[in-house]
């Protein structure tokens, strides 16, 4: 496990498992592998192993972190149908979303990222987005206006 993976694993653990502020190396490793496995089984088919996407599938690699700049964007990542309607329970969905954000964001993620919690996921996923494309375009425009850079 690399340092980056260990750091991600620590974050995954503290965000998703109650009362385990800092896991052991074994727990960290397990959490990381679980999140990666859940990504592979539920997301990778369309989003590609490295989050690059393909065709009409949006690119997450080097980009997904921008959504965390606003509350609306934070909710977007949960309310997109691939997340909200996935077969994963709230805890594992939180873990896989945190894994995606930490693994794929690159420098698109601000340093103050607060990992998703299961309870937060449970609330947000109750309202899956219907008009995803329009919502996404509008969201990125707003984020772009706010940050003054082109998203």
């Amino acid at each position, binding site marked *: 496990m690399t340092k980056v993976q260990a750091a991600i694993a620590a974050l995954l653990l503290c965000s998703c498992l109650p009362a385990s502020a800092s896991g052991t190396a074994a727990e960290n490793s397990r959490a990381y592998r679980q999140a990666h496995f859940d990504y592979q089984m539920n997301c990778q088919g369309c989003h590609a192993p490295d989050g690059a996407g393909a065709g*009409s599938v949006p690119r997450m690699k080097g980009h997904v972190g921008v959504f965390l700049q606003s509350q609306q964007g934070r909710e977007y990542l949960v309310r997109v149908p691939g997340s909200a309607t996935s077969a994963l329970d709230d805890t594992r969905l939180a873990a896989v979303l945190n894994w995606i954000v930490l693994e794929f964001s690159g420098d698109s993620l601000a340093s103050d990222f607060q990992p998703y919690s299961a309870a937060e996921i449970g609330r947000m996923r109750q309202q899956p987005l219907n008009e995803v494309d329009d919502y996404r375009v509008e969201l990125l425009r707003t984020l772009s206006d706010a940050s003054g850079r082109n998203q």
Partner: protein
Amino acid sequence: MYQALKRWALVPAAGLLVSLAPTAAGAEDRPPPLPIEPIGVIETLPATYPESWFLVHDAAFFHMSDGKVYVIDSAEDTVAEQVKGTFNVALMGNILHSARRGEIYAVETFHERGTRGERKDYLTIWDQQSLAPVAEVFLPGKKRFMGMPSRETLLLLNDQRWLAIANFSPAASVTLIDLEKREIISQVPTPGCTFVYPSGDRGFSSLCADGRFMSTSLERDGSIAQQVRTDAFFSTDVNPIFERAAIINDTGYFPGFDGMVWPVDFSGKTAKVGEAWHLVPEAERAERWAPAGIGIIAEDDLGRFYVLMHPDAQDGSQNGGGPEVWVFDPKKQARVARIALKEWGLSITVSRGKEPKLLVTNPVNMGMELYDAQSGDYIKTITDIGQETPLMLYRAE
């Protein structure tokens, strides 16, 4: 084979004519000559297809850009009389027949150079009498649902004035077509939810990855009035249902992998899921009967539905077909007949009318067996019509 036999039969007769002609006494002793035949006559089909007719969708699994639909009359006994005509459906397309409109709708895909070059998707409208394409609507986005043949990707709605076409790109959506104007009305996103089932007069429902329906109702102009997700009623991991349903009087019957069946009321704007009941009588459950196949389910005009069943069901056996068709009365929630098939079955359909016939594709030689749907009696096998992989069967509407 049949044609070859006919040709051979002519040979001795022709030889006879040649040998006798020179010795014949005179031209006046011979029968009158055959009438002169016009060139260029093309057959047409009736405005209403008889009840005994079926549409056989041969997806041409070995050369998919050349998929084909055979219009056949199951009441006839020879190939020459069974085949009424054909039309093409390219690259794993799907079809839907509207007798009221006298048209058959086919959604298909072409590449500019056969298997390469730019991809273009079309709705092709076939006239059911001429079996000629009378119009086409270009479907932009290269996104129409393409997969194993399915009855759930096309739906007539709004009193058959509109056609809904399911898309998967992998984003899920529906393209709405105005069949009067033969143009696109709107594109409706259905995120996470696939296929089109009827819902009310002007709407449709789709099945979602998290085990619920999403019901879309539409305004008069085709824009979205509302989209409602029902409560989840099954686990797509643990007890998945088939996407294939029988629809009788606005109620859909969705069999599950586990042998349960879910009635779904589609009469209103939002799908209402009822209580599931078991397709398998309690005494037989140890034999682990469950639905399996491609076209696994069909309904008749007597209010009954038919399911292709196999014993010893296990993970992975759900698409393999089965040796029996079970007939159910949904009002009684009971099996009313059990038809042991002559050959293993892969897809089924049932003809319309008061004397329904059951047609079954068998994967053994890709022929089709016809049964009396009420007595269960085997009637005949229809084969050698040129079919290769008739994976989906439709009754003539």
